[in-house]
Structure formats: C-alpha cells, structure tokens
C-alpha cells in the first residue's frame, strides 16, 4: 500500500547500491504443480480458518481439501504425460524416466509420480472419512475442543455448542505435502525437512479423537516422543553420511560409496542411523512399538490416513535412499534388512494372533505387511533390460497400492460398528456382525481375505509380486518366511470372519451406524479396488512396472 509507494519513491531518490549478486534459482513450476497444488490447498485452508464464519467453516474446509486434492491429481496426471521422458545412465540400460527439479532438491521420476498418485488417492479417500459427520450426531469424529480437559464440563459445553476443530483439514494437507516430498527427495536434507512436515501434523491429529480422549492424547504424546527420537537418529545418520561423502545429494553419495573414498565406519554407522529413522516410519520390528498404541488411540480417520499415507511415503523414501544413495553398498545393508524383514513378518503375524481389539489388530497387520514389503526391498532386484520380470521397486509400489486401499476400507468399517460409547473396539463385540449387517461384515471379510492374501483378492496379487521380486533378487529365505507367516496370519484373519458370521452375539450385539454418503463411498471404492486388483491387476501392475527405476 503506502508502504509500497513509499518504497518506490525512496528507490527513485536513491541510486542502487551494488549488492552481491545472487542468481535466482530455477524452479520447474509445471513439474512441481502437484506439490504446489497441495501447498496452496493447505494455505487456503489456513486462510479459511482465519476468515470464514464458524458455521460454514467445516463444509468449506472439506470442500477446499477435496478440490485441492483433485486438482493435484489432475496435475499429477499431466506431469506423468509431459515430464516423464526416458533417460539413460551410463553403465546401465534399465528403464528410467523423469528428471530432477528445483535445483536438484526433488526428483520427479516414474516411481515418484506413481507414489504421488497413490498418496493423493489415499488422501482423497481419507478426507471423505475426515469429513464424515453422520456418526456423532452431526459432528465430526474429532474433538470439539482439544484444550479442555477430557470428560470435563468444557467438553460437554463444546459438544452442546457444536464447536468443531476445522483446522484438521489444513493440518492433513500439510502432512500430505510432507508425504509427497518425502519419497521424491533427491537429497537427504530435503528428505529430513519432508519427514518433519509429514510427522508434525500427524502427531497433532493423533491427539484429537472425540471419544476416549485420554487414550488419544497418550497416543499423540507417544508418537511425538518416539517420532522425535527417530527423527534425531535420522538426522545424525545424515550428518555421518555427509561426513563420509561430503554431500547430501543421493547421486553424490552413491559416487562416494562406489569409490570407497573414506573409512567405511562412518558410512556404516550413518546408514544404520538413517535406516532407523525410516524403518520407524514404516513400523518395522524392532521399531514397531508405537504402532499399536497410536493406531488404537488416534481418531480412526487419522489412523486410516496415516496407515496408508505414511507407509507409501516412508517406503518410497527407504527405497530411494538405499537403492540410489547406498546402492553401491548393497552387500552391507541387504543382510541386515533381510533380518529386519523376517523379524517384522514374524512378530507382526505372531502377535497379531493374540489381539482382541480391532484397531490394534489392524496395527499388527500393518506391521506384518511392512515385513512383506521389506522382502521385496531386501531382495533389491533392479530388473534387467529387455525382460518383464517385476522389479523390487514396482513390486513395492504395487503392494502399497493394494495394502493402502484395503486398510483404509477396514478402518472405515471400524468407524461404523458402534455402541453408546463410540466405536466398539473389542473383537468379541463384533461377534454376530454378519447377522446384523451382512453387507458390512461381508466387505470386512473381503478386506480380511485380502490381508491374508487369498487368491482373487488384491492381497494375493500384492504378495505374489513382492515374493516374486524377492525371489528374483535371490532372497529365497525371505520368500519361505513370508509364505509361512502369511499362513499364520491367515489363520487369524479367517478367525475374525468366523467370529463375525458364525459366533453368537454378546448381549445385544453391535449396532451398525448408518453413515453418510462419504463413508459409504470410501467403503465402496476401497472394496471395489480390492476386488478389481485381485482379478485384473494387469493395468496397475503395468503402470508400476513402466514407472521404471529411480532417476539419480
């Protein structure tokens, strides 16, 4: 305003002193448009929070989030058509497409775009669950006022007044932004920043459940403390790797590793610490301890978003760091990762059998599935030119797609089985659900079968791809372990189905709330995808395979 004109006048009066020239950075706005769209959505959300009237805010916020994600999806499609030119590197004739952007901070290649697409679809579906207001008497599943004491008079007043936290939408958008940048980072610094962007909003969202708030707050604190701890490991690892290689950029680290420029201790310690940070995010054993508590305590919509989104982002980053940056040190990290994979599968599947709570059950299931994905990762099969054998990268991406849809669907159903105190967590109370609501129980059974990896469901195709990639990478012990633990886990999943359909209900049995069109849509879409990917996986598998390897 006047400030501007004042500055203009001042400039006219003064001759420009010679400043040190700093060149403007080159930013490929077109290629970055999906990320920019989500950033804009988050910022618009903050502005809506500041300016829109309270009554209209919830609807407006959910609309902004959904429209923003749709725009970002469209941008992703555009990027996949325009910016994924084939590239080749010396010494290899593997398929790779894409380029580095934003002064080398991000790399937009086949895997990145595939994962962006996945993340955006998962976020879209999760936002529908965020926006669900049919289950709590016209209010969202998030606490009305996070600041008041759980169970106090303030909480009752907030509920009576219909106050809601609408900041959840911008926060989720910030998390989504972090998730998108995380697997696309071309250097460790950007990756660390992205890790923080994705984690911080999730820590917060975990503590905002409307029911069982103490459990929710405990989950948030646990997640925050352990997450901060793992971030510190990650950062220390980055420092050590920087000390070893003198660079943050993955390609430069690769060069340093291949040439063995310095003592290996720094590199090994750095790799170990970085893997701690990443394995924490994918909840691999022995860094899984937070998962059940957080999955159980967090609002179910957040759990669904987090379970699907964080896993996609973290596995994308894990693969990129270890395949691109530490590719030359494969023989150092692969044995360790194989052990982690086996441990994760075994612990996930065995502890799963003892679970009695639906959300904890899904949490251990998430751990076991991380183990299955890790088999393909530890197999580290990069493919060979000219053959169509599925590579580790494609297998992991396909599995993430399969797992993400099933898990969001399962959590969506978990929001619907309720009694007077909110969602019914205990599995025993799910007995007889098949009689109460055959359709819902049937769909849940479908997700269970998919988790178990029964043929004709998406889960089977997912397992087949990761085991096949592990096999191609000569990691056959992992395949054996994977098949065995799948069998163990399948026993449990089938038991849940038996419980729902053939057991007598306890007391009155559970009631199934009638959701709005939002949650119904979530369940319908995820169920449909689970079936379609099980019967005709071809197109998606081709998409994953065509994404090619990472661009470095």
């Amino acid at each position, binding site marked *: *305003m*006047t400030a*501007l*004109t004042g500055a203009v006048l*001042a*400039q006219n009066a003064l001759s420009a*002193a010679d*400043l040190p020239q700093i060149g403007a950075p080159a930013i490929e706005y077109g290629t970055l448009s999906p990320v920019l769209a989500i950033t804009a959505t988050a910022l618009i959300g903050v502005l809506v929070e500041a300016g829109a009237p309270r009554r209209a805010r919830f609807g407006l916020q959910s609309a902004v989030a959904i429209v923003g994600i749709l725009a970002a999806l469209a941008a992703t499609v555009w990027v996949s058509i325009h910016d994924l030119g084939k590239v080749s590197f010396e010494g290899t004739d593997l398929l790779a497409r894409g380029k580095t952007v934003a002064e080398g901070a991000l790399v937009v290649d086949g895997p990145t775009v595939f994962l962006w697409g996945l993340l955006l679809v998962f976020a879209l579906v999760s936002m529908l669950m965020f926006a669900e207001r049919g289950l709590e008497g016209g209010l969202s599943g998030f606490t009305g006022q996070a600041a008041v004491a759980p169970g106090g008079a303030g909480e009752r007043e907030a509920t009576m007044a219909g106050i809601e936290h609408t900041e959840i939408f911008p926060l989720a958008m910030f998390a989504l932004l972090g998730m998108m940048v995380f697997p696309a980072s071309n250097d460790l610094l950007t990756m660390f920043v992205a890790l923080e962007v994705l984690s911080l909003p999730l820590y917060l969202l975990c503590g905002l459940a409307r029911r069982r708030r103490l459990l929710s707050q405990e989950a948030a604190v646990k997640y925050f403390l352990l997450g901060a701890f793992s971030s510190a490991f990650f950062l220390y690892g980055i420092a050590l790797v920087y000390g070893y290689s003198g660079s943050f950029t993955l390609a430069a680290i690769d060069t340093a590793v291949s040439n063995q420029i310095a003592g290996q201790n720094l590199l090994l310690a750095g790799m170990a610490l970085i893997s701690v940070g990443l394995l924490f995010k994918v909840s691999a054993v022995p860094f899984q301890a937070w998962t059940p508590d957080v999955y159980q305590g967090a609002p179910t919509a957040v759990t669904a978003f987090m379970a699907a989104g964080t896993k996609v982002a973290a596995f994308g980053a894990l693969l990129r760091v270890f395949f691109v940056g530490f590719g030359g040190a494969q023989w150092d990290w692969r044995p360790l990762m194989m052990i982690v994979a086996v441990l994760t599968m075994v612990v996930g599947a065995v502890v799963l059998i003892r679970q009695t709570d639906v959300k904890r059950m899904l949490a251990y299931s998430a751990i076991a599935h991380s183990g299955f994905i890790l088999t393909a990762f530890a197999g580290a099969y990069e493919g060979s030119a000219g053959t169509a054998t599925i590579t580790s990268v494609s297998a992991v991406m396909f599995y993430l797609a399969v797992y993400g849809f099933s898990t969001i669907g399962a959590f969506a159903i978990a929001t619907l089985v309720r009694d007077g105190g909110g969602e019914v967590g205990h599995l025993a109370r799910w007995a007889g659900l098949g009689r109460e609501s055959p359709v819902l129980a049937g769909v849940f059974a479908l997700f269970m079968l998919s988790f178990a990896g029964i043929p004709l469901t998406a889960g089977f195709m997912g397992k087949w791809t990761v085991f096949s990639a592990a096999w191609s990478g000569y990691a056959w012990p992992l395949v054996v372990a994977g098949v065995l633990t799948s069998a163990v886990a399948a026993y449990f999943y089938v038991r849940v189905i038996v419980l729902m359909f053939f057991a007598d209900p306890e007391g009155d049995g559970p009631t199934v709330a009638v959701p709005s069109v939002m949650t119904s849509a979530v369940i319908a879409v995820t169920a449909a995808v689970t079936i379609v990917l099980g019967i005709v996986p071809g197109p998606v598998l081709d998409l994953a395979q065509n994404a090619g390897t990472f661009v470095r």
Partner: protein
Amino acid sequence: MNGLFGTESWWVVIAKAVLIFLILVIYTLFNIWFERRVVAKMQHRIGPNVHGPFGLLQSLADGVKLALKEDIVPTAADKVVYVLAPILATIPAFMAWAVIPFGPEVRIPFTDTVTPLQLTDLPVGVLYILAVTSIGIYGIVLAGWSSGSTYALLGGMRSSAQMISYEVAMGLAFVSVFMYAGSMSTADIVAAQAEDMWFALPLLPSFVIYLIAMVGETNRAPFDLPEAEGELVGGFHTEYSSLKFALFFLAEYVNMVTVSALATTLFLGGWRAPWPISLWDGANSGYWPVLWFLGKTLIFIFVFVWLRGTLPRMRYDQFMKFGWKVLIPAALLWTMAVAVVRRIRLDGGMDQQTVLIVGGIAVTLLLVIAFIPERKQPADDEEPAETDAFAGGYPVPPMPGHQETRPDA
C-alpha cells in the same frame, strides 16, 4: 571493511577497549544527570544543580551512596544465579559497543599509528549486536527467577516475553537497511549513507519501527512493564540492593545508549556530520566526528527522557498485542515492499507510469479493505447471559454482556 581491523597492535586494541568502557561509564553518569534535569524542566523544577558544575556530580554521589548500601541476598534466592544475573545483564550491554563506529581513521596523538575509531568490525556486525544484546535478557530473567520472589518472577517473565517480541520487529527493521547498504557491517553501513543519504529518510517506516522497538527492548517508559512499580513493586530487581542493583541500573542506561548509537549508525549517518556542518571540509575527519556521533546519540536519549516524562505506562496485554499484531506485521509488510521494489529496480526497473499505476492500485485496494466494516462476531453473547452475582457464595462482577441477577430474584 577497513583492512586495519585484526592487524592492529595489541596496545591499540586494549587502549580502545578501555576508552570505550570509560566513555560508557561516564556517559551513563551524564545520562542520569541529563534525565533528571530534563524531566525536571518538563515539570517546571530545576533538578540537581548543586554538586559540581550544573549539578553534574550529583549522579556520582548517588552512585557512591548506592554502592555503600547493605548488600542483601534473600534466603529463598538461588545464590549462584542471583549473583550471576546482574553480571549477565551488564557485560553484554558493554560488548555491543565493540562494533559501533565512533569516527573515521585517526592518528593517535604523539604516535604515528593510524587507527579507526572503532574497536573492531565484523562482516555481520549488526547481527553481532543483536546477538549479544539478546544475551542480556538472561540477566533479567534469571534475576527474576533466582530472587525467590513472585514480583521478581513476574517481572522477569514479562521482560523476557517483551524483549523477545520486540526483538523480532527490531530485526525486521534492520533488514531493509541491510538491503540498502548491501552489508551488515556497521562501518559499511555508515559509508553507504555517506554515498546516498541518511537511511532514516528513505526507510522512514523502518526507522519508526526501530524507534518503537528500541524503547520496548530497553524496558523504558512507556514500556517499562517488567518493573512496573504499581503492580510489581520493582519487578525483576525487587530483591536487589547495593552494587548488584547498581549493575542493573548501569546495564539499563548503557543499553539505552547502545540502541541510540545503533539508531544513529543505521539511520542517521553514524559519525558523519549533519548537513549544515558537513559543508565544512574538516567536519568528517580527525576527532570531530566523535562529537557529531555523541550529539546524535544524545538526541535519542532526549527522546527516551521525553517519553518517560510525558507518556503513561501501557497495559501489558495491549503492549504485547501492539507488538505482535501491529508492529511485526507492519515491519514484515514494509520489508517485503522494500525487497520487491529493490528487485524490480535491479532487474531494470519499471517506468514511472507503471510505478504509479501499481502504487495506485495498491492504495485503492487498501482503502477498500480498510472501509469494509469489521463484521461483528455472531457470538452467543448477543442475548446477554445471566450471571449469578454470588456464584459459590462470593460476589462476582458480571462479565461484559452479562446481566446480573440477584440470588433472591
């Protein structure tokens, strides 16, 4: 930056350091006298005028008296920190002067050594001043905490919040100066103003923001909330006496001079002579600039005293609201505006017409926004809620918008 810094012989450096210390202590004594005289003038009194010429020695006598008072350490105090606090408040106040330029290069009398009238210069000099003055906050916070007294604790907390808040605005005010001078070194900034004009003119908003922030930063009236006598007895130094109290007193006055000197350096051309004097060729050489420098500093000291003599103390919440909701956004906006205009000019610039059109549109938009009436909150306060005036057996005043009901009604 002057090539002499870092290569001077040790005795020159020590001599300059001792001189700066002496100047500051004497200037402080002078300032206390000055303040009392000026305030007296404003109140149609005379002020100290007996001891020494014009009463100049009055502050010295008061200082001696202060030092001879009994030194009390409260039982509840954390002894080590209690002693450490006044030291922590004083040392940074002096340290900031290491990079303040008093004048150009001069020849030290009776020798052939040529030296700049500045202890040293750093490429990031202003940042250094900001950094060391921020250490001074510890003195006040720790004094408040270690005294073991509620008044002191409240005062310490207030001051930490206040100084951090106003430091942000202060730092933002500097940014536009850096952009104009192309340097963060104090000597370079003075030199840049010699080429153009005093930065106070083109960067008037920055200057005004700095002036406000500097009063907040030094805890002086009307922003002297950490030691608000009416509420907090003496604030953070309630429990202090004798020399320890004297150190806080010294730190406050030195800080006042520091921010004034910084204002002089960044906005008023530093040691360079003001306009009518600058017509004289010898004005900017030799030891004369020290006089111009101290003179300009004294103007700011006068402003400090003037404010103290005329303005009532602000309320704490209004003060913080002003800092965060007015000063910082204004500073940000102005900094952005300067940066944008600067960028445009460096890129080849716009012609006069474009500038006017853009400016006009901006002003119009702002006017329109300013005239949109602020929508009333559709709060549930619209129907006045009823308040039980004797809730829980104690009389409670009604809140705004509430109607009082009598328990017997």
